[in-house]
């Protein structure tokens, strides 16, 4: 469902992502972890079509992002790490805006919007301006909007930042449900526990390079840490000590 081939991004002489190749199948939850400045957000931006790669390609559901960006983006639900929204719209108006852009039919929108707002506990605030929302509420609204058009691929940068414990539990459950329905989920996170809990496979990125990829078991083996948790795996593979 998601295919990254030799993906590279240079900022002047600095290489943020170097020759990244990955394949994520339908119904898989893939976690992307790495230290600050490893290139996670840059990778996610290239996958979402927000940034053009210097070299390599991104293919979403068989569609090349460079060749047919509109078609590829139509299949993605993109959730960035910082919830910048149109502050002068209400939550409901923002959902309507997103639905119109992604071509969600008016009849389907009403039920879908009501359901997602309820799922993210935003129904009571749906007619308030977004500028009055808290960080967590904005994050939840972005998630609700990203699911409106039933995307085949979900790309999420730091999904749990700003969410309360209840919302974190709900999002983890939701991701598992979506994966069960065949949605491919690519998420970057610093919360190793979340990655360990819900990801089928995990990739560790450092200085723009993919150091290791596999299930938590595979990574433990590669890091030679016995039955230690993902935190120890991360420290060993990235060459840091606690």
């Amino acid at each position, binding site marked *: 469902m998601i295919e990254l081939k030799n993906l590279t991004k240079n900022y002047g002489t600095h290489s943020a992502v170097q020759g990244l190749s990955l394949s994520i199948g339908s119904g898989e939850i893939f976690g992307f972890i790495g230290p600050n400045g490893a290139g996670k957000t840059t990778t996610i931006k290239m996958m979402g079509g927000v940034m*053009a790669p210097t070299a390599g390609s991104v293919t979403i559901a068989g569609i090349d992002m460079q060749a047919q960006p509109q078609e590829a983006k139509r299949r993605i639900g993109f959730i960035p790490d910082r919830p910048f929204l149109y502050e002068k719209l209400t939550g409901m*108006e923002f959902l309507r805006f997103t639905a119109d852009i992604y071509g969600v039919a008016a009849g389907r929108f009403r039920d879908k919007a009501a359901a997602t707002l309820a799922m993210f506990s935003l129904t009571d605030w749906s007619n*308030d301006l977004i500028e009055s929302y808290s960080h967590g509420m904005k994050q939840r609204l972005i998630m609700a909007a990203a699911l409106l058009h039933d995307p085949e691929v979900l790309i999420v940068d730091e999904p749990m930042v700003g969410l309360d414990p209840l919302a974190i539990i709900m999002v983890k459950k939701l991701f598992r449900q979506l994966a069960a329905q065949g949605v491919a989920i690519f998420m970057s996170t610093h919360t190793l526990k979340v990655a360990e809990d819900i990801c089928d496979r995990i990739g560790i990125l450092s200085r723009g390079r993919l150091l290791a990829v596999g299930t938590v078991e595979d990574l433990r083996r590669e890091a030679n840490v016995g039955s230690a948790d993902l935190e120890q795996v991360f420290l060993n593979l990235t060459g840091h000590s606690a």
Partner: protein
Amino acid sequence: MTHNLMHDVRLLLAPRTLPVLRRRWSCGSGGGRGRLITLGIVGTLFWCGFFGISWRVLRYFKGIEDIGDLLAYKLLSMILVVSFALLLFSGILTALGRLFLSRDLLLVHSLPAAGHCIFIARWIDATVDSSWMVLVFTMPVFLAYGTVFAAGVGYYAATFLALALLAVIASALSALGVMIGVMVVPATRMRSVVILMGVLLFVMLYLAIRLMRPEQLVDPEVFDSLLVYISSLQAPAAPFLPSSWASDSIQAALTGSMATSAFHLAQSASFAVLVFCLAVITADAIYFKGFSKAQTASTAAIRRRGLSERIFRFLPGPVRAFTIKEIKTFLRDQTQWTQLFLIAALLVIYIYNFDALPLEKSPIQTVYLQNLFAFLNMGLALLVLTAVAARFAYPAVSLEKEAIWLVKSSPLSIRSFLLIKFFIYYLPLLALTETLIVGTNLLLKVTPFMMILSTVTVFFLVPGIIAMGIGLGAAYPDFKAENPAQTASSFGGLVFMLACAAYVAAVILLQAGPVYRLFLADLHGRPLSALVWLWIAAAFAAAFLLSLLAVVLPLRFGEKRLRQMHL
């Protein structure tokens, strides 16, 4: 104590001063230097223009016997009153931003610094920001005074001090007013209230001056007595206005009375210290309370009506989405309303000016003059449109702010996004410009030929100006700008204004010759030769081609730049 205070203030100012110093020492990057040079050239041209005009006017006054100096002093006093008003207005807006609305205030107030230290640091920052432009652009006027009156070094020192003290007084008064105002009106709304008041004040002043018909002052038939006129010029300005003290000290320095000048400077300085101390005491008492209030201003829930959804139902999904979003965010942003008032005021003043033109008194044939004005009016109306577009169309892309990721990650192409923006602004701004043109043409009673020519020309030029606004706005966006005015006054905004002025001038020049020939032929009923017709056709075709390029090229340029931009 004083040492600690100065130390804390200096530290609090470091985030502002360090980037300036760093830029000063490392301004070597190609793009930055290019921008700096362009801005420098434009600034110098304006500066020299101000100096030239002031010098000519003052030389003229100097040549008038008996009342020449009086006129120059009266002008000086008026310039200082206007400068003081500008300093106050700009001071209020800047103080509001620096003291209550800036994004870094949360961090600043979390620091272990005393309230009055924070206030003083922010106030110094606001004073510099709000006054440098007024001071820099009034400087050539004072330089012209010094040159024409052959003043000594003392005059320049006194002028510098008088202006600096005037800026300090205006800024301290503004900060005081803002701190008290925020306790009554929420900070976010206060900016709109101030701008609205400023616009109304400007319109009232303008209409008052226009209704007094100042052109009659130079009409000798109107003078009853020279003595009455002189005595009105000699009437003292308001003695309690800080601008009067500045005016008195500069005037005294001009005539070489340095002791008198020093007395008025001391008057200004003592008042500046008094207002500053008052502002610091007030800040200790209420600044933090006001800041807390600004954080908790409530926002009302919006009633769902779905009216705009029904109106724009016929549009395709993405176009409808952006149209509705644009209209709603515009109407809900109070800072935009005041701009609408400003446009309405501009329209009234513009059309009124044409109504007040004394064409019948002119020695030139009226029909000729009416049509000449109508032709030049096209250029003027398009320059008005440029100014309006600089405030609305140019910042349109930047107004997406950091939510631009929504556009870039959506299945909408950047080209479609820019075209949607283009049409959203094109239709209302076309209506505005055609209203200006038709309204003024009706007042001028122009020939049907000129009416058709001007409305058609404007119809073809408006898309070019809007496309330049959207295209250049996309090429040089500022997604972190706090308001559209900030975006419009950036480097890209300057490029847009210059490009529009060049475009309008080129089309007007292309049309001037052919229109003149056509007009005369029409007026005298003379036929035109085939060669002249060919020339006319070529000129109009060139203008059309230019208009086509003005639409296509900027939009493509903006599309390319925005697509490649790193967020």
